């Protein structure tokens, strides 16, 4: 579940970084090559979808999508204050969540 949440957060981060309004405060510069935005957006969509697959693996395809929609909302809700007040640091909690998620799902208890 934590891994799924980390994937959602990373996905939203990536989607936000692809938006012109957020790119500069988040990355410190404008998105330079023209293909960077679509790539980030695609990456974000992929991460969020992979989270759906993960949640459905945990809960099955009846409860899974419901839990996943809740996770999507929670992940985005966490990102909003970060993008408002500390946009450049937003990557930090997202990355730590990902590392923790990977650690728990491959090494520690599931």
């Amino acid at each position, binding site marked *: 579940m934590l891994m799924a949440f980390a994937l959602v957060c990373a996905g939203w981060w990536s*989607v*936000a970084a692809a*938006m012109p309004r*957020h790119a500069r405060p988040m990355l410190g510069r404008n998105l330079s090559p023209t293909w960077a935005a679509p790539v980030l957006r695609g990456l974000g969509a992929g991460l969020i979808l992979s989270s759906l697959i993960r949640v459905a693996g945990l*809960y099955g395809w*009846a409860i899974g999508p*419901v839990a996943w*929609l809740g996770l999507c*909302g929670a992940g985005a809700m966490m990102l909003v204050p970060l993008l408002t007040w500390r946009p450049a640091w937003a990557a930090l909690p997202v990355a730590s969540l990902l590392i923790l998620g990977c650690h728990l799902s491959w090494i520690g208890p599931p």
Partner: protein
Amino acid sequence: MRPGLRQAMADLHRWAGLGPGWLLFAVFLTGSLSYFRPEISMWTRPEIRAAEVVDQTAALRSAQAFLERNAEGASRWLIELPTPRLPLTQVMVWQPGGPGPHYRHELLDPRAGTVVQARPTFGGDFFFYFHFDLHMPWRLGRFLVGFAAMAMLVALLTGIVVHRRLFADFFTFRPHKGPRSWLDAHNVFGVLALPYHLMIAYSGLVILMMLYLPWGADRLFAAQPALFLAEAGQSIVPPPDPGPAAGQSDLAPLLTEADRHWPGEAPGRVDVYWPGRAASRIVVTLGDDQRLTHAGERLVFDGAGAPLPAEPGQVRSAPARLERVLYGLHLGRFGGWPVRVLFFFSGLAGAAMVGTGLILWTAKGHAGRLAETLNLAVIGGLPIAVATFFWANRLLPTGLAGRAILEGGCFFAGWSLAAVHAVLRRDAVAWRTQFAGVATLFITLALLDGVLTGRGLSSGDRLFAGFDLAFLAAGCGFALLARLCRARRGGA
């Protein structure tokens, strides 16, 4: 799109949202608390030491022994088996005719089969019933909440049309910009939990649809309303004639049968129609915390415990199945605590969406004094009422007559006090006072609860520690809001 349409939608959004907004805020907040209904019911009865996992068969046996001693001649027994979340047996008894009350509800110790010794309280049921019934007579509350839910559905759909930059503003919040900031917050809380908001408003209406739109079923099933519920797959129709007395068979072996039908899934309740009579029917229903749908699959037995073939209602039509799925979605009992926590925060996001929308309206300067007063009385007042309820549960003497009702009275008294304060003063200072009041109530409760019950953070009691932490978090949240009020006043 024609320019006139968006303006029309904006007007509709405003009136559909503002009219029932204050009521919706209360429904969202108490509804969110209802996701923790069993936990609140345990916390409000600190005398009960939560048992370890209870054997359902033993619980059923002790409940049957209790009912045979205390509910002779009843027309129906309903036994809710203990679960890890509410490790108590609940029994409900219907006894039409005879001298005693016609309906009784008792909480039993699952091992001893005796009525639990705890302070009288409604516990989590108080918030659960408030969120759709408002504790009003004649089902008035249910109609009010129904109108509010319908209006909310309209407000959501028109809101999507009005919100021009749904994706461009997905993550956008611009602080310190007056109404602009409130609009951003309103959009964020609305859009990010939009699937939840749509689901909860629609499913809430569907759950009570037979109350809101009874005419079709009335026409077709006027003589036998119970037959409609049976055909919709929600209950069975017991034989009309109870027949002669014929000792009640042992219920416990039926759980073995249930385990054979639903391996790995625990049954939730056992219903006995005409207990101890020849025409008795026993219904074992699957627990409601394992599947998305609230279908309540069941096994029906005759009085001797022999399985009966499935009735027509067992095979449900597609609309009946959809209704059960929406019911299950609204209750959110599946998926364990991670899903419950997500539902809880989605519900709070709903309250925040409504609250920011109401404040936005007054921040724009269009609204009158009444709206400003109501905003403070509801957004500041309801959390005060909730905290008062929890405090009353701890402070009212346990032997007091009508204690459970008085706890509810304290909830409304706390709310009224906040409302009077809001009438007298409704400036930024008053907001700060109320938020600081909520913060104080919650933080002191978290700190003093361990002293009052001996089951605080330090005692290692998980349920009580969880509540203390939640109260602390709520208190800190409201303290932050109070600080923000001060900052806003200093800035403006």
